[in-house]
């Protein structure tokens, strides 16, 4: 079984600020991590590897520093890392990103592609589904549980108010939720392997087949018109009263604001 896991390196906090002039994230000084939904997808792939001996490739598009996220994935147990990096890819929106990733995936063999539901720095949840469309393969989103079956996968597709059990044939793409599992730590020997024995392949524009009109800032139909940091809310009011009275006041306030 061949699995490709798409991962994104993101800043390690949801509280990063936006640059008010450019509308982009200020990443300086913020440590980077593997996006949590993606990391659970990687864990799911590694569990399949433990069970049936799958070969796991991790793929990421990003700046050269994203090498670190791929090495971390290798140290957790992935077999191969590919970093898609080129100045021409910079500034991509979800369309350009999915076009680029799909073009890279066309160079690879796979039975299953896993992407995290959404990235904590963008929250679009679009890249995974778009890749499936570009590749013309079935997709199942919001996967919280996965079981291997003879002719494909049995998936639990979760929503706020319930879930579907979905059967799907491979090859397919799934997007995973971080609630799916608790990702393993890197293994100590895995860290040495990630730097000494395994390689992160660097792929540039020349390594994939793609129309340049579909990549980078030029290939991105989404234009950010304005970005702003929400102003701080006014200070709340503190009522120092008995719990019962406090509960009544809260309910009163919630009704007043038509929340309940």
């Amino acid at each position, binding site marked *: 079984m061949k699995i490709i896991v798409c991962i994104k390196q993101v800043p390690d906090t949801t509280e990063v600020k936006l640059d008010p002039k450019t509308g982009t994230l200020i990443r300086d000084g913020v440590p980077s991590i593997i996006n949590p939904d993606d990391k659970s997808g990687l864990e799911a792939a590694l569990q399949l590897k433990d069970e049936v001996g799958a070969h796991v490739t991790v793929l990421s598009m990003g700046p050269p520093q994203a090498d*670190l996220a791929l*090495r*971390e994935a290798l*140290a957790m147990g992935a077999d191969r890392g590919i970093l898609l990096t080129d100045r021409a890819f910079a500034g991509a929106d979800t369309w350009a990103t999915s076009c680029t990733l799909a073009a890279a995936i066309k160079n690879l063999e796979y039975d299953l592609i896993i992407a995290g539901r959404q990235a904590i720095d963008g929250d679009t949840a679009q890249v995974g589904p778009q890749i499936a469309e570009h590749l013309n393969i079935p997709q199942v989103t919001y996967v919280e549980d996965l079981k291997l079956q003879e002719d494909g996968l049995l998936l639990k597709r979760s929503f706020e108010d319930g879930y579907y059990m979905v059967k799907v044939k491979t090859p397919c793409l799934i997007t995973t939720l971080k609630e799916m599992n608790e990702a393993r*730590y*890197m*293994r*100590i*020997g*895995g*860290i*040495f*392997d*990630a*730097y*000494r024995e395994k390689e992160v392949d660097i792929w540039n524009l020349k390594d994939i087949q793609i129309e340049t009109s579909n990549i980078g800032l030029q290939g991105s139909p989404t234009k950010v018109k304005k970005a702003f940091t929400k102003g701080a809310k006014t200070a709340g009011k503190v009522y120092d009263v008995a719990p019962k009275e406090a509960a009544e006041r809260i309910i009163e306030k919630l009704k007043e604001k038509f929340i309940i």
Partner: protein
Amino acid sequence: MNFNLSKEHIMLQQMYKDFAEKEVKPLAEETDEKEQFPVETLEKLKRYGFMGIPFPKKYGGEGGDILAYAMAVEALSKVCASTGVIVSAHTSLCAAPIYEFGTEQQKEKYLIPLAKGEKLGAFGLTEANAGTDASAQQTTAELQGDYYLLNGTKIFITNAGYADIYVIMAMTDKSKGTRGISAFIVEADTEGFTIGKKELKLGIKGSATCELIFENCKIPKENLLGSEGKGFKIAMQTLDGGRIGIASQALGIAEGALEETINYVKERKQFGKPIAAFQNTQFQLADMYTKIEAAKMLVYKAAFHKENKLPYSKEAAMAKLYASEVAMEVTTKAVQLHGGYGYTREYPVERMMRDAKITEIYEGTSEVQKMVISAHLLK
């Protein structure tokens, strides 16, 4: 001269920290309070490779180096010194001598399961009347055909009762003094080998410390480690390596105490401001941190020496001497800066202070380290 850590070591530090904070720290208080050997943690340590860091992959290890091992003991001890010493005794005192002095068959049979963490290791040298004077061994091993008959009692043995494999020193020829000592690999289920009294200790309460009793234990001849009469040399060299582990443990304890103290002094208010605003607090913190960094340099340098096959006996002794004294000083100051709360079990610094003391004693007291260091200076 280059003080930069390699990319691997930076990533290891991140992994160690993550693991220690999430898996070890939450159990540290209970491990101490209940004097409970952290069996569940051991399973996790095994899973992620903590039990065989510096050994080659062909012997079941992680293919890492001494610095990676030292940093692991440091990171674990920062949150739980009992967990730190379990890894240190296992790696430095049991797996390492088998790796360094064992035959290919011994490595195959014992080092591989030790390095994989499937088996836990321990080391037995100390006896009731043979502490710092290790030459006064009374345990004997008498060759009888194809086995040695082992008799005697060892005390203060770390990991005792939980370990599966023990490296044990015994006299094979009393007339030769230290040259009559030999080292043996002893399996826990050997007939006649029992675990005696468990010590009740001031600190590192989660670490098992017991007596080992050998009554006519038949040790197969092929379990002699090195050759007859080489036991003392093996023990001394093993302890040289072990000191890097204990120095790392001491370093970790000091770092943990400093971190707790920094958090506390920012929160604790007296006279209308956080105590961190007082110059006494600031000066104390500066001293604590500076000494910790100095200790770290000595510990990492000793690890570098051992890794690069440079002489490291003096370096390991200096690292252990200094780091353990720093651990004691820093934890004592940490308790003082916490005031009355620091003396209670509500905060972890009192545990750290109790844990720190042993680092000045085991695997060679501070006085022994000074003997080792000065012997190098005067030779």
